């Protein structure tokens, strides 16, 4: 059941840590929707709850209350078996430190989600070639992660994430461990995936530069959504970047809290 084209619905999400007398509210009622084909960024200072939010969506942690609907299904209430079905196939992950298995070659890493979900490799062959071509990693498919640069690793991770045609890709600071050039290349590729293949991406980032590739950005602070920015249709990335910086400067009542 697809509700009016909404891919992901986050409804009044709350997450508390700690016990009775000492409760920290990491998320205090966060609601938003993600539309198919969107490239949504989530920004916020440390401790704002953005990682908690991503983990709730990623089904890594269970929210205290509220719902996360993917295609209208409440995935936050799934048990671990159903979750396993979702992870890797319907939801793709991109991590700050890549999380490639360093004893598997690039290609083996990319194909891993397929084999976990029992997908026939023959069908994925073309897909692999296409992804590898697009992400410029064809040459390093048979190398081990230790023989790759950081940027290459993250692009291999991206290929692993897209190989299963997930409904949504959750990226947690994907440029966090990359130098500026590699970060830009990666973001270009992600943007390309989003534009050309209509991939939906939800990215958490500190980095306004990376965030400027998004089509919409949610700013959260102290567990609530604080602001929202949309990239205008004809807005350049530079302009959007300026606007992001402005918002960040206001966050937390000044620049002291930012970055």
């Amino acid at each position, binding site marked *: 059941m697809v509700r009016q084209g909404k891919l992901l619905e986050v409804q009044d999400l709350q997450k508390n840590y700690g016990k009775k007398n000492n409760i920290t509210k990491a998320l205090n009622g966060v609601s938003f929707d993600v539309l198919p084909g969107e490239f949504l960024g989530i920004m916020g200072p440390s401790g704002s709850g953005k*990682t908690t939010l991503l983990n709730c969506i990623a089904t*890594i942690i269970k929210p205290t209350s509220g719902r996360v609907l993917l295609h209208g299904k409440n995935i936050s209430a799934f048990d*671990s078996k159903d979750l396993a079905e979702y992870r*890797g196939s319907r939801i793709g992950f991109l991590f700050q430190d890549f*999380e490639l298995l*360093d004893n*598997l070659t690039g290609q083996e890493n990319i194909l891993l*989600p397929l084999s976990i979900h029992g997908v026939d490799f023959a069908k*994925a062959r073309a897909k692999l070639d296409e992804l590898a071509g697009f992400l410029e990693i064809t040459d390093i498919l048979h190398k081990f992660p*230790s023989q790759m640069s950081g940027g290459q690793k993250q692009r291999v991770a991206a290929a692993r994430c897209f190989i299963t045609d997930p409904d949504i890709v959750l990226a947690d600071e994907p440029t966090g461990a990359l130098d500026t050039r590699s970060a830009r290349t990666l973001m270009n590729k992600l943007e390309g995936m989003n534009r050309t293949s209509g991939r939906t991406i939800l990215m958490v980032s500190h980095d306004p530069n990376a965030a400027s590739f998004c089509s919409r950005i949610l700013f959260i602070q102290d567990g609530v959504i604080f602001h929202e920015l949309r990239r205008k249709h004809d807005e350049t990335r530079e302009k959007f970047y300026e606007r992001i910086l402005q918002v960040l400067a206001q966050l937390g009542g000044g620049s002291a809290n930012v970055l």
Partner: protein
Amino acid sequence: MFSKLIYRNAKRSRKENLIYFATLVIAIASFYIILSLGRQDVILFLKEFESDSIDKLLAQMPIVYLFALFLLFFLILFANRYQLNRRSKEFGLYLLLGMRKKRLVLQLLAEGFITSILALIAGLLIGGFLAEIISLTVSKLVGQGIIGHQISLSAGAIFFTIIGFLSIQFIALAILGGRLFKQEVHQLLYEQMDKKQDMGHFTGNVLTLLAGAVFLGVAYWVALYRFTDIAGLLLFVAVALGSLGTVLFMRGFGKLLGLLASLSKNKSTKGLHTFTVRQFQENVANRSTSVAVTSILITLSIILIADGASTFIGLESVFARSSSVYDFTVNGDSQKIEQFLASEKMEPYVEDLNLLKIGRMKYKDERGENGIPLSLVDWSALREQMIMALPDNYKEQVLSGEIQSYSFSSENPEALNLFGVLETDTTAPYLIPESSYNGLLKAIGKKTLNLHSDEIALYFNPDFMPMDNLESMPVLDHILEKAAKEGKSLMSIHDQAVYIHPSIPMRGLVADRSVQIFSAFIVPDHMFEQLMNTETYVAYWNFRIPQKLQDQEGLLKPMMEARDLLKASGFTFESYLQNFGRKLFYVVAGSYATLYMGFLFLIIACTVLALQFLTQVKQTGQRYVTLSMLGAKRNQMKKSIHRQVLLTFLLPVSLACVSGAVGIRAMIAFVMIHIDDKASLYPIALASACIVIVILGIYGVAVARSADHELDKLRWKPNIE
């Protein structure tokens, strides 16, 4: 505060790492078992008859102990290294918080001490219990209760166990602590699996694998066909080549495993197959040497256990009294002995009393050329017949005079053994009067001889001449029967034709070995008096413990009592106990040390494999988190881990099985393993294989469970605690 930390850490180490603690306990138990050997019932029992050999055996025990200490040192070192690796993050944290390295090492030693004390308590209890069980089992198997049971607890053994264990534990911890000193805090905090994934070049790996296989092949060939060449030096060549081959094989194989992952395209998309193979490869390729060493250890343990088991199975032959009849043989003044044996205190122990007279036949009065005395016996007719009965190849050798000497073995055809014995003995054969042998026949419930005055019977000593059947000798009988039908005499003594009685039941003439002859002529009493060379005459009183007494008290107890009485009497005597004790000694001495070393090797190999595997799981734990993010289910991952465990154990074990089989084969071929008939080899091989498999299985299951546990403990929620 500090002491609390030490205590808590030590407690946590034991709880979290059962394998580590179990390793310590096993090491201690095995020290104790070897050290308390002197207190084992069997050894105490044997000391009474074979005290020299037992002393020699016990004198060698310190060497075994030192060797065990040496081997277990590495095991302890390995176990501690694993344990410290697990905790490196914690140490990094202590250092980060400002603890001085010296203090950290001291703390480690203190923790080690607490753990050691507890391991000592557990190990000594288990060791004591095992020693007790072994003692009881062996004495039960051996003596059916006559070997008095004594608690095998030995203070000296406990003392040396404690000293030995504490010293290796502290040396190991000191070495590892020293290593800690050298590491940077960062290294400790972020310790990880070597990131090297250098799998080398394909051709290089193939060459390594091939070289390994060739070395192994040569080693096998040497072991099977050239084992004893160059004074056994080739044995070392075989071992060296085999070890080198194993190392190379493992190295090449480990690196080539990647092929398996990439070649099998069909499988590679099924579940975690690729991951499993890669994990396995990492474990083997990065540590090929230690995998090879475990394989070599398992090989040795298979061979040692098979050898020890086969020796121990020889225990049956200790009890089998197939050819032995008498329990005691007394030698000395014939009349005094007879009186003593009939005395009131001795009488209850005596049955089937029989005087064995024995002496050699005289020579002819005239001498031959060169002054060689001439035999009274002319057995040329019999000799001819026997040569005819020989298998063709031997027949030629005999006729051409090629054979100069004879060896007697169960491998030879009966005719050859017979011929050899007669050829060597008949110049001046031993003579036994008919009446003496009739006494023996009566004792075993057989028909007595009733020789005609021109008739003799041939006696062959079953202790020295192997025979399939003690009751009759078909080849000889065939010849005799034929001659009887034709009415021919095959032999003449003193120029008188004599006829040979068909073969009779053969038994040992005395209790142990005061009479060591291969053969004798059993002759009518008058012929004995007439032909016997009086200078060679000896007489022995033989008797048995009454059957009734045996039924009531078992054989050994009355035998020991009778032995004590005889000892007090001052007569020269021998008893079946000596025979029994000697055989038992060979079995016990032969099997104890080999079985001990066999199990020790096996346990060391298993522990190394186990700890190595668990280290890998620990170090690569994050990979499982990643897998779960990619959608792998928990049981999928556990299945992968279990397969990894299986492969990790299977690889060294399968190579070890091949090498072990070759080793056992070689030992059988070169008569180091004492197997009378080849058929009994199979149950032995099977039994030792089962023991090895069971131990491996226990370890495998323990490792799999620990790995599961490790998996459950992983932080499944990254970035959030």
